[in-house]
């Protein structure tokens, strides 16, 4: 059995090595992608494009505008005069927020009459809009406090309850630290599924499956021999991504390397088993490709907790997310890397991953066994 596995694996390895383009894509491209996307992706919003409609044109109104521009969050794109201009700017995405300062602003402020400024926010991206809203509220509140301090220098204590926040694991709240583990999981998942999804069906389509069936290779050795080379390849690729992340993005490593490597292997086995299962069911390479992408690309991106918090999803969708292996892997990866958690904290997720891999492998070999007889 072992000898036949080695024989099949060697043959597959030869085939991979003969096609340097495929080899390069599978081995080096994942790390390269992390390099680009790691820089590109972040949620830390800076330089929000702000337009200003200043109906007052006074010292105070200019002070408020510079409070916005000096905050580092807003970047002034220009002054507008009419409401039509505001609409045009926002519709063309040239401004994300518009500050409207009413006439008599200075008069009101100096005579200590309460006044209101308006901030219009483009809400199409709800996430960005909430952040922008928070910035605007904070800046105006600060401006307002400065004015009341100017009026009554003796500040009486106001809030009776103070909040002392402490952020663990990622004190500067850098979104990169959150996104990079997600990228690692996503890239490894897609690489692993894609690399095995065509393996069996290709032999079927080319007619070489008949030859394999005639040879003394059983379905088990065939499966192992087919996947082991790709498993090794994906594992090396995953380690390369991790090293890249540590060098370029200061990704910490607070837990145990052994546990991490074990979890990566378990995850990759599951992902390849999924690819293999698809390959054994599909009628043609086209079908296999379609199913592989539909089952790995978007679900891993959206249903794994990579970007969208699982706890905000409807309960039914949370249930469906349990068939996405990246969901478990991401919890494990973030826990080991960012939190320094040990086996005690992540064993449940690892058990789920193992269950997924076993079921997928069992289904794939059942399917193949039928093919053999």
């Amino acid at each position: 059995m072992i000898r036949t596995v080695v024989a099949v694996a060697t043959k597959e390895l030869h085939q991979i090595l003969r096609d340097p383009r495929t080899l390069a894509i599978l081995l080096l491209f994942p790390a390269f992608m992390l390099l680009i996307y790691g820089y590109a992706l972040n949620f830390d919003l800076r330089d929000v494009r702000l337009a200003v409609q200043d109906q007052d044109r006074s010292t105070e109104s200019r002070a408020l505008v510079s409070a916005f521009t000096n905050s580092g969050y807003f970047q002034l794109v220009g002054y507008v005069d009419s409401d039509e201009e505001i609409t045009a700017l926002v519709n063309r995405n040239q401004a994300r927020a518009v500050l409207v300062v009413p006439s008599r602003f200075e008069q009101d402020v100096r005579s200590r009459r309460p006044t209101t400024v308006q901030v219009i926010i483009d809400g199409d991206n709800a996430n960005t809009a909430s952040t922008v809203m928070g910035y605007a509220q904070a800046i105006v509140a600060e401006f307002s406090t400065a004015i009341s301090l100017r009026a009554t220098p003796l500040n009486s204590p106001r809030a009776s309850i103070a909040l002392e926040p402490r952020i663990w694991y990622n004190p500067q709240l850098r979104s990169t630290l959150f996104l990079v583990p997600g990228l690692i999981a996503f890239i490894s998942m897609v690489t692993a599924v894609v690399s095995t999804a065509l393996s069996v069906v290709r032999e079927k389509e080319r007619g070489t499956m008949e030859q394999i069936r005639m040879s003394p290779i059983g379905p088990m050795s065939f499966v192992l021999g087919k996947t082991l080379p790709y498993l090794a390849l994906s594992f090396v690729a995953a380690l390369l991504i991790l090293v890249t992340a540590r060098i370029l993005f200061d990704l910490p490593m607070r837990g145990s390397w052994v546990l991490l490597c074990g979890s990566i292997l378990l995850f990759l086995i599951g992902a390849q088993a999924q690819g293999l299962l698809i390959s054994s069911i599909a009628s043609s390479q086209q079908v296999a490709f379609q199913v592989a992408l539909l089952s790995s690309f978007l679900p891993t991106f959206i249903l794994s907790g990579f970007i969208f918090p699982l706890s905000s999803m409807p309960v039914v969708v949370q249930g469906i997310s349990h068939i996405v292996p990246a969901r478990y892997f991401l919890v494990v990866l973030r826990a080991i890397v960012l939190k320094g958690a040990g086996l005690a904290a992540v064993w449940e997720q690892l058990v789920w991953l193992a269950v997924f891999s076993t079921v997928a492998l069992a289904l794939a070999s059942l399917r193949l066994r039928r093919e053999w007889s």
Partner: protein
Amino acid sequence: MRRVLHLVRKELLELRQDPRLFGIVIMAPIFQLGVLGYAATTDVKDVPLVVMDADRSAPSRTLLARFEASDNFKIVGVVDSTDQIDRWLDRGEGWMALSIPPDYGQRLQSGEPATLQVVADGTDANSTNVAMGYARALIAGYAQELAAGSQAQAAPPVSVEIRVWFNPRLESRDFMIPGIVALLLLVVTTNLSAMAIVREKEVGTLEQLNVTPLARWELIVGKLLPYGLIGVIDVILVLVVSIYWFEVPMRGSVPLLFGLSLVYLLCTLGLGLFVSSISNTQQQAMLTTVFFFMMPMIYLSGFVFPIENMPAWIQPVTHLIPLRYFLVIVRGIFLKGVGMETLWPQAAALLAWGVVVLTLATLRSSKRLG
């Protein structure tokens, strides 16, 4: 033209022979949109909160009741000591821990300021930011009420009135679903056409096509049309699901959106044909599509990650991505109700992209083998 029609007929016959493929291509987008549409939300609600109440007084229970009643928080655990908080956060079962000091009630009653401690898991920086905002607002509101009870407070000198356009309730779903529609169309149609020519190469039937008087452009058009038909069916289905099932507000013109979706299909199908023409095996075609085209598109198009947040050297790259333009179009028509007068630059870019990639595909699909 008759030769093209024959090729179209051959392709359609082949599709009929593989009913599984047809089923996948039609059903999968609806099913995926149905699930992913619900999942893709950046709204933060039901933040799992762990509380440690060292005071156990009436005021501390009132405060906890506030958190309990809020839609934003969900108390998942009550612990007795600080070290127990570690375990909740390490496992990721609690995102945030609120600890109330033993003298909290006493201090409030004697009018002294009290301090609450909040520990948050910072791994999900984005959600943590939002959750901290919720906690601050909740406590500030509560504190203000307490203060108002003892003495009337003057209105702040400058207040701000926020108006959110296009999406006043800040539903992230309305923003995400148009994006998912664009992505699903990309995944399904590009995959289909990416295999179109290389499959004939691999199976050996391309040689048979080569001995026919079929011209290169006829080959491309003949492959494009049947897949285009599937694409059109998919466009109609996903638009119907978004508008009638998810009730994404449709403020613009449906015919315009449909028309521009066809231009987008030209790009996605053309891209697939191009990949197909430069690949030797179906595996190569698959890897090239996934790694060189799909991944950049999903990350660099502005689907979730705002382009304006990206470093200056990456931003120009995003202009090469057709999905970027189509996203502006779909979201613009759905949420802002804008028309061609605003969207013409995006539409022009999309059309140009489609024409260029189809031309490249035609030029590259040499009739020779190897």
